């Protein structure tokens, strides 16, 4: 089985809210000093799903693709260290202004150049945009089914997979004929730690870089359809009333009384 996993490098989502800063004029996040960007969490889940398929289906190959600046190599290397077979970086000054549609167009072009795949696995969403749409754009452009969010998948005979897709109050089980694009969620696929050997191999790996010319893309493909007009931080007022008491148990009792007084219980 040929699997392509889309990988995005994102600001660390665990940055404490107090350290999160936005440059409103540039409409960009100001990375806090000393906090390195990371591999998007759900993309790590997607790669973990791919690695488990590889363990079950002989002859499976996993290729990573990422659209990002040179620094995104670190995310690709992390993926290689976890066990992916190869990686491609999609980097070109023309990609800097990509919106979701243009990002999908670049990824779809890269997938075509890789001669397609049986499965394209993406994260259900990137933790910067929180959009959950690029992979569905890829599916649309490639004319494939795009299903999301998927908590579990397994091979189902020749050329098909069985997937569990989250729905309100439970999940749907679907059987999908390949090729398909899936947005992977975090319930099952806890990403593995890269083994030492993987880290060493990844350190030496050659990662080709493809730009517009390699992908046969024109400015028209990259034309943004959606503008980011404003980016800002909404201020919240801290006004908590902390219950002080002689013992934790007493604090618990007083909390109950407070809530009764406020007619909340």
């Amino acid at each position, binding site marked *: 089985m040929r699997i392509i996993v889309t990988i995005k490098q994102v600001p660390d989502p665990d940055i404490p809210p107090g350290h999160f800063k936005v440059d409103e004029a540039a409409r960009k996040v100001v990375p806090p000093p000393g906090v390195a960007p990371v591999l998007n969490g759900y993309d790590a889940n997607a790669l973990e799903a791919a690695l488990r398929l590889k363990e079950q289906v002989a002859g499976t190959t996993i290729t990573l693709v990422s659209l990002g600046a040179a620094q995104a190599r670190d995310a690709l290397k992390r993926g290689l260290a976890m066990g992916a077979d190869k990686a491609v970086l999609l980097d070109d000054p023309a990609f800097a202004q990509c919106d979701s549609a243009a990002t999908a167009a670049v990824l779809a072009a890269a997938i075509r150049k890789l001669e397609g795949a049986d499965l394209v696995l993406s994260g259900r*969403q990137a933790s910067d945009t929180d959009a959950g749409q690029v992979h569905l754009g890829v599916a649309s452009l490639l004319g494939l089914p795009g299903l999301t969010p998927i908590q579990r998948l397994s091979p189902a005979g020749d050329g098909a997979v*069985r997937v569990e897709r989250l729905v*309100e109050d439970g999940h749907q089980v679907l059987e999908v004929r390949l090729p398909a694009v899936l947005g992977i969620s975090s*319930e099952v696929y806890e990403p593995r730690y890269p083994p030492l050997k993987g880290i060493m191999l990844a350190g030496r790996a050659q990662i080709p870089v493809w730009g517009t010319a390699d992908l046969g893309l024109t400015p028209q493909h990259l034309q943004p359809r959606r503008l980011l007009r404003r980016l800002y931080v909404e201020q919240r007022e801290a006004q908590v009333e902390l219950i002080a008491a002689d013992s934790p148990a007493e604090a*618990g009792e007083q*909390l109950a009384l407070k809530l009764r007084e406020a007619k909340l219980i």
Partner: protein
Amino acid sequence: MAHTNAVFVVAEAQNGGLATISAELLGAGRAIANALGGPLVAALVGHNVASLAAQLGELGADRVLVADDPLLADYQVESYAPLIGQSVRSLAPAAVLLGQTFTGRELGPRLAFDLETAVATDCVRLSVEGDRVVMAKPVYGGNAVAEYVVQTSPQVATLRARAFEPAAPQAGRRGEVEQLPVQLDPAALRARVVETVRAASTGGPNLKEARVIVAGGRGLGGPENWRHVEELAQALGAAVGATRAVTDAGWVPASLQVGLTGVTVSPDLYLTIGISGAVQHLAGITGAKNVVAINRDPEANIFKVARFGVVGDWKQVLPAFTRKVQELRGR
């Protein structure tokens, strides 16, 4: 193609009635339609849904498009997207609104990309400037807000549950109902729904509609301690929620996850135990009127949004609290 100033809403049915998001979509859709000066059109796709069309009229739809067919009983993107896409194409509305539900989050982007336009997902505020809809949505886990404008048409948005005022039904108001032709070849579908598995009911009130919620986090230490959360919920007649740390660890089903990538709730009282208050969790409770926190770390972010809090170990605080609640509520 020239676009009209119509607003097109993709309503949803659930358990034989309209899903709560439908009235919210019509409420938001009405405001946009008025600002654009166009009609409000609602589409409803499913099986045995035709009888709900009148309700969409009462909720403000000027036209109601219904596709009712046994083959549409289960939502499946490959059957729903072309059907809705076709009617959006022929109507050429200025805007298309869907819910950020498990249907809309898959269908909305697919529809937008198939129509060669763009979407903003998980919107919490919409406004109109000229002929453009300004779409505000949380990004970076809820640390920031982005305002997007789609430059192509139609402008597609999915709306977060409970973020918009639902339309109030006006008895006797009618929308013009039309049936959409359904031509589906099941053999052409590449995905097939095998079954739908409902998470085991927790017995208490439904999380999404609950007025009181007790939510537990990783600070509980392990699944063996979860019963303390349930005991308190029972004493309060509350629903139970959890953080992703807890659902990913498998202590409770994923359907109890509250937050950005889980359920959005808006209770009067949201009581947290051992929850740090990560922005991604808080993204699901922006509508909660009163947050209460029991957490041993005074620096925990949850105290930034809480109205009342106890800094302490839940093992010592919670039993006394639960006992007092039981006493006050007379059980």
